[in-house]
Each structure stands twice: as structure tokens, then as C-alpha cells.
């Protein structure tokens, strides 16, 4: 459950990214494809090499969605409702892929490499909880 303090930390952390959101999204995806090769099975139609336009484009989308969720932390269900439908009915990404948090892990690694010491245990905890909450909403309509 996201506390008020968690929400504050998440928003502050997102605020520190200084316009690098697109790069961060692309890098998180690239790391996910490197560390967890099975995740590539959802992108047979993509060029998955480093620097690929498709990864950049998709990373930008993912980060925009997360940014929107961060603006609506009090109502994640509603903010992510369409994405929830998309993932459940069209994309049908294996739900454990969400709960195993491959993307969460890789996004956190990217944040940690950029924020260093500022990625404190408290920030780490808040971001981890946030990503788990997002995953839960996206998996809500699977069945």
C-alpha cells in the first residue's frame, strides 16, 4: 500500500529525471531484453538491437504511461484502465512477467545507475511498491 511518504518520494524521484525519461525507458527495455531473453518473445516484430528506433519509441510510451500513473497515484486503477484492458485482451503478456517484475527490476537498475546514493533504501522501497501496484492494475482484468 502506497503511503503518503511513498507517493512523495516517487514524485520527487521522477522529478529528478530531468527530461531523460525517453532514454530511461529505452534503456530499461534494453536491459530487460538482455537480462531476461524470454521477454523478447513479445516483440518478434521489433528490431531489438541497441539503439533501435522501435525500442526508443516503445520506451517512450512505457515511460509516458508510468509518468501518467505517477500523476494519479491516488487512482491508479482508473489512470491505467485502458492499458489494463490492452494487456489483458490484446497483448496478453504472461501475468507472472508482471509480478516477477522484470521490467520493474530493470527500471530500478536504470534509476539506480543514474541516481547513485540518491536511490536510497526509502526511495527503492517506494519505487518497488509503485511498480508492484502498476503490475497489479495491469493484471486486474486477465480473468
Amino acid at each position, binding site marked *: 500500500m502506497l503511503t503518503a511518504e511513498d507517493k512523495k518520494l516517487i514524485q520527487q524521484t521522477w522529478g529528478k529525471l530531468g527530461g531523460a525519461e525517453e532514454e530511461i525507458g529505452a534503456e530499461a527495455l534494453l*536491459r530487460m531484453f538482455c537480462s531476461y531473453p524470454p521477454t523478447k518473445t513479445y516483440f518478434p516484430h521489433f528490431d531489438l538491437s541497441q539503439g533501435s528506433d522501435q525500442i526508443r519509441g516503445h520506451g517512450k510510451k512505457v515511460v509516458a504511461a508510468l509518468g501518467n500513473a505517477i500523476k494519479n497515484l491516488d487512482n491508479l486503477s482508473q489512470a491505467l484502465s485502458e492499458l489494463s484492458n490492452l494487456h489483458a485482451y490484446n497483448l496478453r503478456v504472461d501475468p507472472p512477467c508482471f509480478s516477477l517484475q522484470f521490467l520493474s527490476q530493470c527500471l*530500478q537498475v536504470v534509476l539506480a*545507475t543514474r541516481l547513485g546514493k540518491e536511490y536510497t533504501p526509502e526511495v527503492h522501497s517506494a519505487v*518497488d511498491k509503485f511498480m508492484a501496484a502498476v503490475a497489479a492494475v495491469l493484471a486486474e482484468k486477465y480473468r
Partner: protein
Amino acid sequence: MVNWTAEEKQLISSIWAKVNVEECGAEALARLLIVYPWTQRFFDNFGNLSSPTAIVGNPKVRAHGKKVLTSFGDAIKNLDNLKGTYSKLSELHCDKLHVDPENFRLLGDILVIVLAAHFGKDFTPACQATWQKLVGLVAHALARKYH
């Protein structure tokens, strides 16, 4: 039989050479207890775990973190025999400590994040992939003797 390429071995040893085992171990364990508070169930006799500050400053947490990561160092010296290296520890975690192996995966992921925060850009995607593979295999070796 696990296969390690020369590149993977290099990525592991070059990072490990720069790791302060005591600091890194303490930090990883503290974060486990902070980010996944239910893991505190295994450390009832550790004293004050009431807040992130208390956990980070707790001397028993630091000491145990150092122990855990030192053992990790043994794995790195024996990359071709992780199962053998962790056989006794696996039995211990099952029979005496009663730790759900899921916790090994959580700690492994946290260790990767701690390394990322420490090494910044040097913790490249290839580096992360190698270390995710390593922590996954360590977790697997530790779970192997469960029954």
C-alpha cells in the same frame, strides 16, 4: 552444467574486485529488510528493526550482511561448481533456518540494484545480465537441497 563465457567471467570478476564486501553486504541485507519487510521474520533476535534508519544502523544487520556477501564471494571463486559450494548452506537454510527460497531471489535482485547504484554507468546492460544470471544461479543452488 552451467556455462560461463570468458566475457561473463570477466564482467563478474572486474566488478567484484571493486566491491567492499562489508559495506555492500550490509546495504543489500538492510534493503531486503526495508523493501520487503516480511523478511524481518527471520531476524527476530536482531533487535531494533523498527525503521529504515534503525535497520541501516543495526550492527547485527551489518554483520550478517557481511557474512552473506562473503559467502557470495566463495561462489565467485567457484563459478563452475555452485551446487557443490552451496550444498551445506542449502541444507541449513531448509532444515534449520526454514527460509522460503523466494527470499534468495529477492536478495539477489536487491544486490544487483545496490551494484547499479554503486557503479553507475559502468554497470552496463551486459554487466547486469551477467550478474542477474549469477544471482539466479546462486538462488537456485541454495534452493537445491530443499525437501
